[in-house]
């Protein structure tokens, strides 16, 4: 492995960086095929019911409107894997915002006007959109997202809890959260002689092609899915969304290339979101904070379209040694938009609850919260008993504490008053599983001394091109400049999506394998290379698909400093510092950006993000970027990410764990714990907006004058 030290692990610049800063990078809407038409969706305006009639004439009479697709005239589709993709197939309205028609026009303006002009009649039915833990229809599903069993139980959690000297019982709530990538879900589709080609904003083109093959009943080689540049996804583009299906239908129906870019306000209803999670936690511990009993019960919802269970109780199976434990998920099916993946599904909300509870335990026992976590380190994975392939949580906590200046912290709440501000600090741990999937890749040595590596990775902003080229160069033992890389094209062959923090591990493994094979082939080759070069391929189905005997997870620790304004209840994160143990970091430059990005999304989860289901209308009230507050520049003062060296031989040939999601895990809890330290008030419901924080401050008993202005 020559070149390892210089190539893999080097802070290489993004290969597509120049295109992105000059505006030359092309995203899915930006393929202006001759004759291209534009589409605009019509969302349902009832929370549940049936379409009883669609009058498209007012739209069709408008200049420039080409067609109106409805369930009555749209192409018939095959059975998809995801029922949410069965669009315009029947009159059923499973939730408000479900698309009931699509207008295709010569211009965006005509398409939008046409969508407003379509008259849809409904037969509305009673709807139920409000989540409650006491809902009589709540049930325990078989599995939660990721295939995890919905329930795990060890020993006698009730008995152990009853017997524990220190007992904590807390409820937390994480509201609906929306991915809102900057590029809305977009597809440009065209049909040429029965061949379907789509440029789509997706985290993985192989999965998109598989669905299009099912839906349109085509052989695989007649569908090409391209995703050259993708403006973020954060889980919401992990599998195809309805934009690609609608664009393909519209293109077939009109015989024109069609672009459909979903309007921002349509996204919350149709691209997935993180469902509300209601958490019930019980911790039993001894006076020194050693946990003996742990119960984490989560109630969440899904839509009527399909079952999706945010696996928020799963991290409690991994984190702390607790001999007697119970984790359980409960689900209520509601007439609401279908929830789906959002950055660290399960871990992000689950660790907010668990790590807040740990902080409450630290306060209850007087044990330093860093020390408390160290004290509860398990020997093996608590749930499975499997050994960890590597676990450096303690090192992350210690290193974070050192960098942050945790030592000497006054643990007393409200000990950090500075004028009208209350300043506090908090810590929380992070975890995310190591996932990896089979993938194919090829490598070709060319006579000019360069190499062409092809893998159907997708670059949603992670730097996939760059790091795959680094993996290739490392395995080939050549400088990365000699490696050309092709990604984002379903014709390359199967690859998993950019998701589950598994992209680099999965693609990289296949790239590495192909390059190693090519190197061997080259070693046995004599004379010059033929014109087409010399190629080798790899398929990691066996190696990457094999079940590991190890419990494999990345870990981390977040440290937050906050300033709470006692006049308004406004909270500002003045500092957020994370230290992660995620195997080998393959490109520190792009890795740091991703970790900081995840932490920033966690900051938003803590302070600004959340939406509200309207009980009367059945939609999310905060549906645009003016009302759903993703953090702005001014919210993000100092966010730093570091890592500890971790050498884990049980992962993949690169020795890497994923880094895309762990940054968001635990960061909201660190902020919340800092707010408790600052104010003495425990806020168990996110986000920590001024309405909530000021109310909490005022409800809390304070000595006279301490909340003065």
């Amino acid at each position: 492995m020559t070149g390892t030290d210089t190539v893999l692990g080097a802070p290489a610049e993004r290969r597509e960086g120049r295109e992105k800063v000059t505006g030359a990078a092309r995203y899915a809407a930006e393929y202006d095929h001759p004759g291209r038409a534009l589409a605009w969706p019509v969302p349902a305006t009832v929370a549940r019911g049936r379409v009883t009639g669609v009058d498209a004439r007012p739209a069709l009479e408008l200049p420039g409107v080409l067609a109106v697709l409805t369930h009555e005239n749209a192409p018939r589709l095959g059975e998809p894997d995801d029922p949410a993709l069965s669009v315009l197939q029947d009159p059923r309205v499973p939730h408000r915002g479900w698309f009931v028609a699509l207008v295709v026009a010569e211009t965006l303006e005509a398409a939008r006007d046409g969508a407003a002009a379509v008259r849809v009649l409904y037969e509305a039915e009673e709807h139920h959109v409000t989540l409650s833990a006491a809902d009589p229809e709540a049930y325990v599903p078989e599995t939660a997202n990721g295939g995890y069993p919905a329930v795990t139980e060890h020993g006698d959690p009730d008995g152990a809890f009853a017997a524990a000297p220190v007992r904590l019982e807390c409820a937390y709530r994480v509201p609906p959260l929306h991915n809102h990538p900057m590029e809305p879900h977009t597809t440009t589709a065209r049909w040429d002689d029965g061949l379907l080609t789509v440029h789509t904003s997706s985290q993985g083109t192989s999965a998109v092609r598989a669905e299009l093959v099912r839906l349109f009943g085509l052989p695989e080689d007649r569908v090409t899915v391209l995703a050259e540049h993708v403006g973020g996804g954060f889980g919401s583009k992990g599998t195809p969304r309805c934009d690609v299906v609608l664009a393909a239908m519209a293109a077939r129906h009109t015989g024109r290339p069609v672009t459909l870019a979903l309007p921002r306000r349509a996204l919350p209803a149709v691209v997935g979101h993180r469902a509300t999670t209601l958490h019930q936690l019980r911790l039993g511990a001894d006076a020194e904070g050693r946990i003996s009993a742990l119960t984490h019960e989560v109630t969440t919802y899904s839509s009527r379209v399909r079952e999706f269970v945010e696996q928020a109780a799963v991290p409690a199976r991994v984190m702390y040694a607790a001999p007697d434990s119970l984790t359980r998920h409960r689900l209520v099916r509601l007439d609401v938009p279908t929830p789906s993946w959002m950055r660290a599904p399960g871990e992000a909300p689950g660790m907010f609850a668990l790590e807040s509870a740990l902080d409450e335990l630290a306060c209850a026992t007087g044990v330093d919260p860093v020390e408390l976590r160290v004290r509860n380190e398990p020997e093996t994975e608590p749930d499975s008993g499997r050994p960890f392939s590597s676990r450096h949580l303690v090192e992350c906590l210690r290193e974070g504490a050192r960098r942050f200046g945790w030592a000497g912290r006054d643990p007393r709440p409200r000990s950090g008053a500075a004028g009208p501000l209350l300043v506090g600090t908090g810590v929380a741990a992070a975890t995310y599983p190591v996932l990896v999937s089979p993938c194919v890749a090829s490598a070709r040595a060319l006579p000019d001394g360069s190499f062409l590596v092809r893998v159907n990775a997708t670059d949603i902003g992670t730097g996939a091109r760059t790091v795959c080229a680094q993996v290739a160069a490392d395995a080939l033992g050549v400088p990365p400049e000699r490696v050309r890389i092709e990604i984002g094209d379903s014709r390359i062959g199967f690859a998993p999506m950019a998701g589950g923090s598994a992209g680099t591990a999965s693609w990289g493994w296949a790239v590495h394998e192909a390059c190693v094979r090519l190197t061997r082939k080259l070693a046995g080759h004599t004379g010059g290379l033929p014109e087409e070069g010399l190629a080798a391929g790899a398929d990691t189905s066996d190696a990457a698909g094999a079940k590991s005997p190890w419990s494999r997870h990345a870990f981390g620790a977040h440290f937050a400093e906050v300033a709470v304004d006692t006049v308004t209840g406004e909270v500002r994160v003045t500092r957020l510092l994370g230290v992660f143990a995620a195997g080998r970091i393959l490109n520190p430059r792009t890795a740091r950006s991703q970790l900081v990005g995840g932490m920033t999304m966690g900051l938003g989860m803590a302070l600004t993000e959340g939406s509200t289901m309207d009980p009367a209308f059945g939609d999310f009230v905060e549906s645009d970027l003016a009302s759903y507050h993703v953090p702005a520049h001014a919210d993000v003062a100092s966010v730093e990410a570091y890592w500890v060296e971790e050498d884990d031989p049980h992962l993949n040939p690169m020795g890497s764990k994923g880094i895309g999601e762990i940054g968001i895990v635990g960061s909201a809890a660190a902020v919340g714990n800092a707010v408790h330290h600052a104010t003495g008030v425990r806020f168990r419901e996110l986000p920590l907006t001024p309405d909530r924080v000021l109310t909490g401050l005022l409800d809390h008993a304070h000595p006279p004058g301490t909340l003065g202005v």
Partner: protein
Amino acid sequence: MDSQHPSAAPASRPAEAAPHSETTLRVDGKPHTLTVDHRRVLLDLLREDLGLVGAKKGCDHGQCGACTVLVDGRRVNSCLQLAVALDGSEITTVEGLGTDGEELHPLQRSFLERDAFQCGYCTPGQICSAVGALAEAASGHPSHVTDPAAPSGEPVPLDRAEIRERMSGNLCRCGAYPRIADAIEDVIP
């Protein structure tokens, strides 16, 4: 605005009843005369009519900043500007920031060097916005975080808090904010 639109006069009034008008814009130094649908906003004109897709559509409602371009040197959300109302204006997009399309603008270079983006979708808007923000500060425009006691009319020095506040009209969901602030700091003389 008069000074920026010497030609602004009743004479340029288009046909009143028609839903479209002839409009001339100078975009990245090149004049374009088009018959524009009155409904067409600058962003869609750039992207659909001129093929200049650097300016991005993130929200279409002035809530994200991805569509930021410079109109007569000032940064605006191009998604909220009706093209017909800009007749005679000078537009600068991310494609027009560099010189001769070869050399990168210093901000484009610093964004690259600082890895100040990930997915890249907000990046053209961030860069155009930064160009505008630097000019505003230099011309004495205060911000929400400028000390009210700072002298009026004088250039405002840009510290991190100033940069963050002034760039807050440009959302970045990938969370590249700290690096964007670094990149902007790098080009402050």
